[in-house]
């Protein structure tokens, strides 16, 4: 097909988790014939094992599909799949910026959810044409008319003639494609202006190096061009450009304004490609980069250590490999007295952290010990200098601190009315500041709170789930730093401080947290030959104390007729158990103890 912008449609699919985004994407791929039925695995675009298992998209993906519409014209459809979680909000916003339209998938029985709204607002901010699609009409509980009404009332989008779909059963897919052709505007970008290519994703290919997924907003790019990263300030020679197929590449001579595709330029380090950055030509640069770039900053940090110290190298290689594909992951070596050699890792959020941990454990077969997640605190010292602290251990002595600030988020909770009280109580508990409350369709309420991020990462999701029996949904966005009365809470085992257990907390929370951690440790640390005092302390002041009593009884009564195998097995088990423990002074602490303190009851 020759280049003709009027036949290009760039769109994405937005939806609340579980509303069927990936299944719809699969049906579209199948219908347009780019995926043969026999090649289809469920949810093609979610290629990572973890993505499929958790039903969420972690990385953005783009696929080009030829589609001959009912008007007889062959169109080039570019479907850009976006990550589906609040941790990846920024990546989503860049993917949206690459499109002209968005299919809004809404579950015919669930209706609008928190993420639906958040995504719609974001799509509207990017001036996208929104095509509502009601999915799962095959469900007995489907109420497409009610849901349509909801969309019209709450979002103000006309649902007249909107496709009613069962992605699962392949019903209504043609309607969706026709709607895309009819309603999503064709790009109107200037192919003769200097190149401006928006990077909306990056990943690593073993043969091509780090690759940029791009949407050309102006100009052209072809093999041999010298390109410049406008924010990244580095230049490369293009080795390949092209479009994506569901399972591979379709190299082209050039990419032109309005098109979506990839650029490869033998880039060795993915850190040279920043999502949101603009690629231009070195010899004919655009005057300005595209708007909206912001460097991705990790919000949550934690220490990751190999359970077996001998696995340090494997862990380092594994992190290096994951980082190849994930510019948002940061890590650097750190040493803990309790845990030995490991890494301080930075993540976009808790889910991102969890995903990385699971991938390390699964794909690299590593056994890990993880410290409590921490946010980045701002410390203003008495000498006027400012420090950013992502590890409680690095906090300067109290007398050198003038004040501290903590990151705060703008949080939205959507809940059935009956749980409003429970949620307000929870947000109160979490030091939240009430902002706003709105009644929305279906007897639901949208609550708006300012919450300290360190309360959100500590057990907020679990609490929200249990207090609302899973009915509430939650979304947040980083707002900024606020001054706060924070203290470092240390844990002492047998009088020795265990650095890996230190946390920074609000002074008002220090006492209950200290007591709770001490209790948790008491449960997690097995009795040993010597009594172990556990203390929680702020500055040298002990605020809570527990004791692990000395081991009472640990002996096998008998051995049968010279069969010592049971004894040996038990000994091996005990040795193994001991090896998996960390030595804090004279105390052996099981790896689980470091995790146990993260959980509230």
């Amino acid at each position: 097909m020759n280049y003709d912008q009027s036949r290009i449609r760039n769109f994405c699919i937005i939806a609340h988790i579980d509303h069927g985004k990936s299944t719809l994407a699969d049906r579209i791929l199948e219908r347009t014939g780019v995926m043969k039925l026999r090649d289809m695995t469920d949810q093609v675009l979610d290629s990572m094992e973890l993505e499929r298992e958790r039903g969420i998209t972690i990385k953005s993906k783009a696929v080009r599909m030829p589609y001959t519409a009912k008007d007889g014209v062959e169109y080039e459809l570019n479907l850009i799949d976006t990550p589906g979680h609040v941790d990846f909000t920024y990546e989503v916003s860049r993917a949206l910026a690459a499109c002209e339209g968005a299919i809004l998938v809404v579950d015919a029985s669930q209706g609008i959810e928190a993420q639906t709204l958040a995504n719609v607002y974001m799509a509207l901010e990017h001036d996208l044409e929104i095509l509502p699609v009601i999915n799962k009409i095959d469900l007995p509980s489907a109420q497409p008319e009610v849901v349509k009404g909801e969309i019209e009332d709450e979002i103000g989008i006309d649902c007249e003639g909107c496709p009613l779909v069962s992605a699962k059963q392949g019903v209504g897919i043609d309607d969706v494609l026709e709607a895309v052709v009819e309603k999503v505007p064709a790009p109107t970008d200037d192919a003769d202006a200097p190149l401006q290519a928006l990077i909306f994703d990056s990943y690593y290919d073993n043969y091509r190096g780090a690759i940029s997924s791009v949407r050309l907003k102006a100009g052209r790019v072809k093999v041999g061009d010298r390109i410049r990263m406008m924010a990244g300030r580095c230049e490369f020679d293009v080795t390949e450009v092209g479009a994506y197929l569901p399972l591979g590449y379709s190299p082209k001579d050039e990419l032109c304004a309005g098109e979506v595709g990839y650029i490869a330029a033998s880039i060795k380090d993915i850190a040279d490609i920043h999502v949101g950055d603009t690629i231009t030509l070195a010899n004919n640069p655009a005057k300005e980069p595209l708007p909206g770039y912001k460097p991705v900053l990790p919000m949550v940090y934690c220490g990751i250590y190999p359970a077996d110290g001998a696995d340090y190298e494997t862990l380092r290689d594994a992190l290096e490999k994951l980082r190849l594909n994930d510019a948002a992951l940061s890590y650097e070596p750190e040493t803990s007295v309790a845990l030995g050699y490991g890494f301080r890792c930075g993540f976009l959020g808790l889910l991102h952290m969890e995903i990385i941990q699971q991938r390390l454990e699964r794909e690299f077969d590593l056994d890990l010990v993880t410290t409590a997640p921490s946010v980045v605190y701002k410390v203003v010292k008495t000498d006027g200098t400012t420090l950013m602290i992502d590890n409680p251990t690095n906090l300067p002595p109290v007398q050198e601190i003038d004040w501290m600030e903590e990151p705060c988020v703008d949080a939205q909770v959507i809940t059935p009315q009956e749980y409003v009280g429970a949620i307000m109580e929870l947000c109160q508990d979490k030091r939240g500041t009430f902002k706003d409350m709105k009644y929305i369709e279906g007897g639901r309420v949208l609550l708006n709170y300012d919450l300290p991020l360190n309360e959100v990462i500590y057990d907020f999701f679990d609490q929200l789930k249990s207090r609302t029996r899973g009915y509430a949904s939650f979304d947040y966005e980083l707002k900024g730093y606020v001054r706060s009365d924070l203290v470092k809470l240390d844990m002492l085992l047998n009088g020795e401080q265990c650095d890996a257990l230190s946390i920074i907390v609000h002074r008002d929370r220090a006492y209950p947290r200290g007591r709770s951690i001490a209790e948790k440790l008491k449960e997690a640390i097995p009795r040993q030959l010597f009594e172990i005092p556990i203390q929680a302390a702020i500055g040298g002041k002990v605020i809570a104390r527990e004791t692990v009593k000395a081991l009472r009884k640990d002996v096998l009564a008998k051995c049968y007729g010279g069969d010592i195998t049971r004894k040996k097995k038990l000994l091996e088990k005990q040795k193994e158990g001991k090896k998996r423990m960390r030595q804090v002074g004279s105390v052996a602490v099981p790896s689980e103890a470091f995790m146990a303190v993260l959980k509230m009851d």
Partner: protein
Amino acid sequence: MKPLALYLHVPFCARKCAYCDFASWPGREGEWWRYFDALVTEIRLWSENTDFGLLKARFRVRSAFIGGGTPTLVPAEWIAEALRMCRQIAPFDADAEITIEGNPGTLTPGKLRAYRRAGVNRLSLGAQSFDDDLLHTLGRIHTAAQTVEAVRMARDAGFSNINLDLMYGLPGQTMAQWLDTLNRAVALNVPHISAYSLILEPGTPLAARVASGEISVPDDEAVIAMQRVAVELLSKSDYGRYEISNYAKPKSESRHNLTYWYRGDYLGLGCAAHSMLDQSRFSNPDALDAYLAGERMTDVQRLKQWDIIEETVMLNTRATRGIDLAAWERQFARPFAPQDDKTLKRLAGAGYIEISDGRLYLTGRGLEVQNAVVLELLEIQEAMER
């Protein structure tokens, strides 16, 4: 000539006890004879076997132990025949300790006399408790009165070296019941008493009943108290504790028992029997069918230096004589621990171990947590090996 201990396993019983998870089967009388036939064949083969050199050229038998199961269930003549054949493996010392394990409910004066004639000079009775209700809970086939009667019969038949096996930490057992059992055992004035704390083995009916909450066992605290009471009460009657679960009047320690703890050579014969010869461990299959089918010496393990060190620590420390430090140094060509070792000091300071007269041994308190102390001592060994 090196000393050798023989173990003969009889894997049959009248009824499976509720706590028992070892190789023993009730019924199967049809297989008794086949089993003894196989056992005698195994004994004969060992008398000619040269895998470890011809045993009769290298060893003399210092002890033999016929265990089970319930060896006193099968005809006494079969036991006598097996023992007679054993003398072909290696010559027996004139004063060899030859023990048979017996259920008090299965003994008769006739059987006892037959054992004596066959050279058996020690009887180990599974008394377990002197409380009939507890015996019932355990699934034992005998009563307390039968135990008393069995001891009388044994003495009449000429047995003076008698052991009573007792158990504590039983479901619903009170301290008073335990004291009563100990007192009645002591009153019988046998030279040897074993007192085992009950181990709930997974898969046994007793473990299932405890897991379901139907019955409950005393907690660790109570079990420790029972064990301490046993040490105290028995020592007053001149029974010295020489191993975690074994008590004997002076010079009545079981030689066979000590062979296991001090890693002497022993040869196990029969189904599920374990052996250690020349620092190799091996065993016969646990399953009766596999044994009858002729499978022998599975799981041969040639012990390495580190295995031997580990076993020595693990086993020697069960005995109250502990580790002979000079013997250790001779065997491993290095001391047990560096001068002024911190771990040893800590353990001694806390009263878990004592070192005197060239021996390192666990105290009463140390024996209560022997596993944990062993781990500490092994860490010293790991450091010494590095």
